């Protein structure tokens, strides 16, 4: 067990590598109840969400979800979030555990600033969150619910019952596989967890920990707040232009982001693969032509691809695939090369 964002979290159950492979080939069950939820409600809720997040929430229908950023005036990340449209006047942001308190203060302040009829509520303690991820996810979960899961598209959600518990079922995840995240009342969460594990046993579903969650998300090139981006890196630098609603009215930090999009940001997050046997890890320095030129933000040996991969910030003019650079690995310079992301993409 390890302390993470104020929670005791299992790094692994029977083993990180086995759990990673289970999710890629069968299914894994994650307890991600540490994630936070902040709801924004009122007649002007949409206007408030548009003001504080980078993506265009006006494009969401009821039951739809989008990946987005809570931005600072500098266009950097307060957090990365999923925006759920519960109703036209009611949104839910799913935020990182370590940022719940910071995010809520930020959101409450800026929702007020946006004016009108909208209020933010931290509802994190009302939800446990259980993620079933992997190719068998739909088949297994369908045995426990009357909700037609095949009708829930990627990044949409529905409400209904799982194992007799009233829940929200969201077709989302942090693994690069198909799967669902189930929001359940905390006092019924264990029942949902046990029911899914039991129903998935014959299909090979296993409990999976924080370790596999990290290696899976990295293979899928999903960013991790605090590693790959934070309050010092902009949305454009993190190469997440697709989560910016470029056509919508201004939002916090939009001027900086529009400028960076047009003029180019000084640095960009890239994927890399090690060319020698070693792992470039978070915080290791990157060298180009013998000069310190950036930093590794995430790195691991991936159990599925069986390669050492990672992400790093490089000067924007040196980010073409194939560009070679060096990483200082505990005093030794080791070669790596830029590769396209994602590293892993599931077959449709």
């Amino acid at each position, binding site marked *: 067990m390890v302390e993470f964002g104020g929670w005791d979290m299992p*790094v692994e159950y029977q083993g*990180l590598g086995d759990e990673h492979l289970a999710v890629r080939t069968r299914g894994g069950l994650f307890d991600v109840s540490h994630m936070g939820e902040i709801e924004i409600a009122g007649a002007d809720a949409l206007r408030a969400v548009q003001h504080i997040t980078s993506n265009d929430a006006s494009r969401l229908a009821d039951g739809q979800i989008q990946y987005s950023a809570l931005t600072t005036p500098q266009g950097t990340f307060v957090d990365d979030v999923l925006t759920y449209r519960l109703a036209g006047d009611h949104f839910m942001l799913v935020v990182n555990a370590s940022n719940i308190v910071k995010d809520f203060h930020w959101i409450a302040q800026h929702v007020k600033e946006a004016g009108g009829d909208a209020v933010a509520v931290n509802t994190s303690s009302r939800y446990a969150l259980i993620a079933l991820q992997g190719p068998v996810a739909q088949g297994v979960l369908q045995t426990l619910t009357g909700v037609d899961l095949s009708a829930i598209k990627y990044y949409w959600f529905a409400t209904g019952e799982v194992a007799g518990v009233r829940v929200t079922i969201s077709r989302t995840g942090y693994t690069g596989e198909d799967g669902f995240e189930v929001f359940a009342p905390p006092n019924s969460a264990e029942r949902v967890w046990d029911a899914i594990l039991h129903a998935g046993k014959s299909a090979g579903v296993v409990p999976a920990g924080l370790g596999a969650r990290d*290696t899976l998300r990295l293979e899928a090139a999903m960013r991790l707040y605090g590693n790959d981006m934070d309050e010092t890196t902009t949305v454009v630098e993190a190469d997440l232009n697709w989560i910016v609603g470029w056509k919508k009215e201004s939002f916090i930090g939009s001027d900086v982001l529009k400028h960076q999009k047009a003029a180019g940001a000084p640095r960009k997050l890239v994927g890399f693969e090690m060319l020698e046997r070693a792992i470039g890890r978070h915080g290791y320095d990157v060298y180009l032509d013998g000069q310190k030129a950036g930093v590794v933000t995430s790195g691991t040996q991936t*159990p599925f691809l069986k390669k*050492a991969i990672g992400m790093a910030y490089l000067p924007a003019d040196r980010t073409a695939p194939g560009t070679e650079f060096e990483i200082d690995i*505990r005093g030794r310079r080791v070669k790596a090369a830029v590769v396209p992301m994602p590293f892993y993409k599931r077959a449709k």
Partner: protein
Amino acid sequence: MSYPSDLKYTKDHEWVKIDGGTAKVGITDYAQKQLGDVVYLELPEVGRTLKQGEVFGTIESVKAVSELYSPVDGEVTEVHAALVQHPEEVNKDPHSSWMIAVKVTGGQDGLLDAGAYTELTK
């Protein structure tokens, strides 16, 4: 897994098998379990002299990087190159997966026997 009685152990979770004047060194079952899937092993050059407790290499798993400490004073006479190519063997059979052989010149104080080490890891 029980700890073989013909090995000695350190509090840093290395084992050492001393045979005449030569010692082979590896990491214990407890250590490999803590590390999880081992992916890389960095070992010293033959001829390097080591003091007891000195770092002689690093072992890296998906989860973490860990330093390896010499259980004895001595000179490295052999490096297990095949293990560097297949470091996952450390997980499968830790007490046979020797990393370096050392010509022992001293510094064997404080090594634990199997019983004491078993107690330490409880």
